[in-house]
């Protein structure tokens, strides 16, 4: 699981309001280099939840200063920043561990790099329609 994916995952069980950001308990993290696509990173940067990404960086054991505290338009023109962001989003893989919901404490195990987001029928929020 890449940190880009982590940035969009939430816990959607009954009684949970936000269920976001899920905290990462990583037992195995791999770095795998991938081709740098500046346009993709530029496009995706404004849609990211920045605090969640910084928290994720910390939780997988990367240096906290890899990313600045906030993203700005000026930074999007800076290639060094884009490369660092690309590395964080695309090259870090959480291979084993778990995701934990901050509200309910529900755990979603990660195995072989695939998070298990399955929830039981009884855990589903009731549809108001």
């Amino acid at each position, binding site marked *: 699981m890449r940190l880009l994916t982590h940035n969009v995952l939430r816990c*959607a069980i009954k009684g949970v309001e936000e269920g976001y950001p899920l905290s990462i308990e990583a037992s195995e993290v791999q770095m795998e280099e991938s081709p740098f696509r500046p346009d993709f990173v530029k496009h995706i940067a404004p849609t990211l939840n920045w605090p969640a990404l910084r928290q994720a960086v910390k939780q997988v054991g990367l240096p906290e200063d890899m990313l600045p505290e906030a993203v700005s338009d000026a930074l999007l023109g800076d290639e060094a920043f884009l490369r660092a962001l690309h590395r964080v989003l695309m090259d870090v893989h959480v291979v084993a561990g778990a995701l934990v919901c901050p509200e309910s404490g529900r755990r979603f195990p990660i195995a072989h790099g*695939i998070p298990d987001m*399955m*929830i039981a*029928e009884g855990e*589903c929020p009731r*549809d108001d329609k």
Partner: protein
Amino acid sequence: MDISTDMLDVANERETDHGDLAHHDMGTGLPFRPSTFDGVISVSALQWLCYAQTSEQSAKARLMRFFSSLYTVLKRGARAALQFYPETPEQAVLISSCAAQAGFTGGLVVDYPNSAKAKKYYLCLSFEHGYRAPQALEQEGAGAATGVRVADRERQQQRRQKGKKREAIKSKDWVLAKKSRQRQQGKETRPDSKYTGRKRKDKF
């Protein structure tokens, strides 16, 4: 995203350079942050929401959960294309009515409705009020359009999806190519004439 761990293992073995996988049942709603995606593609999955595996599951509830969560996770202006194989026409209607109930516009597109092999159902969804699902592909000269519209009642300019149109099956070119293939294989083949691959008159 898949409900089967075996399928996920297969996907994991193949290259997943740009994508990530997740194990999830889409009938329990999508586990993503709101307004996240520009587009969604699903292949041969939607029909499985029409079956209840256990007594506490209901097909309607699962479909509604899927479509309303899909509505939430898409960005405004995003599109979704979902290909599926309905077992009965009623299933196709149930699925598209649930999509409309969740607030989507768009509709069902049936490619090659008269061919058993090439027939394909797509549900094309959008937020735009005037959105019309793209034109279905058809056999040459097969007659009127068959796309069923669900939600959008205002007739607006017809929009076509970008991209190249696939070649119609059983066209003259296709017949000629097939015949020459068969000749090469040494099979007995009728000679080409002006009647080859020509459409017959509609007789009744």
